[in-house]
């Protein structure tokens, strides 16, 4: 039985790289506006699960369903369009475009979705204010600190009003204080906007910002929401 009302769900995912199974029967679900932490030791399959959920990689078997549509039934172009319109991403190392200013970075996903420059930058600035980095609008990523860069990356992920944000170890490169601030701002902004967050982390203090957690161990996950 799948969890009622879930926005994104995965059932019995299996994925093998060569002889090594990365996922071996993983299930997962997240509801709109919910923050779920995916936890587990290094190499347990957390990131592979996230990549399958986001449609970046295709599992060998099992299903990923988003808003009632199965991702594997979509074409590559449809999945790319879905990632641009409905999904946002935050990685461990911001991965901002170094040649662009911070506000241009935040505006980038909006521009890719066809929003005009002025409107895109206005929206980007609003998000930068929420993430308390509006002063960095004209700076380039190389000129800001790790914590500031990560807040810019969170603003970029949230600016297009995605339905789901995937955050892969978003505080992994930050010290405790900066990491906490990023988590506070990410979870608060996502909850206010009704955005679901799939948060991959191996740190319990980071996972404690989520509403619940799913543990991945040896490629298998235990999602209590999933009545198997």
């Amino acid at each position, binding site marked *: 039985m799948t969890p009622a009302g879930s926005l994104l769900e995965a059932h019995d995912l299996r994925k093998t790289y060569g002889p090594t199974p990365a996922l071996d029967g993983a299930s997962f679900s997240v509801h709109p506006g919910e923050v779920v932490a995916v936890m587990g030791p290094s190499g347990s399959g957390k990131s592979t699960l996230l990549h399958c959920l986001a449609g970046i990689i295709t599992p060998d078997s099992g299903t990923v369903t988003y808003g009632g549509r199965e991702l594997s039934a979509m074409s590559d172009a449809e999945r790319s369009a879905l990632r641009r319109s409905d999904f946002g991403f935050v990685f461990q190392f911001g991965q901002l475009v170094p040649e662009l200013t911070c506000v241009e970075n935040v505006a980038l996903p909006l521009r890719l979705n066809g929003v005009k420059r002025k409107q895109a930058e206005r929206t980007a600035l609003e998000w930068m204010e929420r993430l308390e980095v509006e002063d960095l609008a004209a700076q380039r990523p190389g000129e800001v600190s790790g914590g500031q860069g990560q807040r810019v990356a969170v603003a970029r992920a949230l600016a297009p009003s995605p339905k789901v944000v995937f955050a892969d170890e978003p505080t992994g490169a930050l010290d405790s204080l900066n990491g906490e601030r990023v988590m506070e701002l990410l979870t608060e902004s996502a909850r206010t906007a009704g955005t679901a967050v799939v948060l991959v982390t191996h740190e319990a*203090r980071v996972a*404690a910002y989520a509403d619940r957690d799913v543990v991945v161990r040896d490629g298998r996950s235990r999602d209590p929401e999933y009545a198997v």
Partner: protein
Amino acid sequence: MSIGHTLLGLLESGPRHGYDLKRAFDEKFGHDRPLHYGQVYATMSRLLKNGLVEVDGVETDGGPERKRYAITDAGITDVAAWLAQPEKPEPYLQSTLYTKVVLALLTGRDAADLLDAQRSEHLRLMRILTDRKRQGDLADQLICDHALFHLEADLRWLELTSARLGRLAEVVAP
């Protein structure tokens, strides 16, 4: 926590009644466990007997007698010595968790389930503390952080033990 030393420390800023002391203690340190009046008065009589405080005045205001306490020089020295003395780190060498894991292995029960249940309970408490931290002031944040770091250390132990269960089972229940 040494209630006596904490009350003494609170008296350093000026004389106070027992009731004021209790209120100041609860506000700063007693979020989860406020002091009972009995504790305050018992502690103050002990401090008085040991010469660490003295009665600065007695008021009645038509009601019961209320003593105002002041810290003595000996009391100030005592607080200074307490603050300078490092706390003994608690190594938790005989933790209940360890005992439960070993007993589960000895009796053929599922120790991994036990560890998972504990992990989940730890994380549940961590979420509550994180939420309290989010809504609290800086003092709340510091108190919660202290608890969160301890719980995190426990969780790391749980993870490591979970990864070593096979080997532990061979040693404990060959």
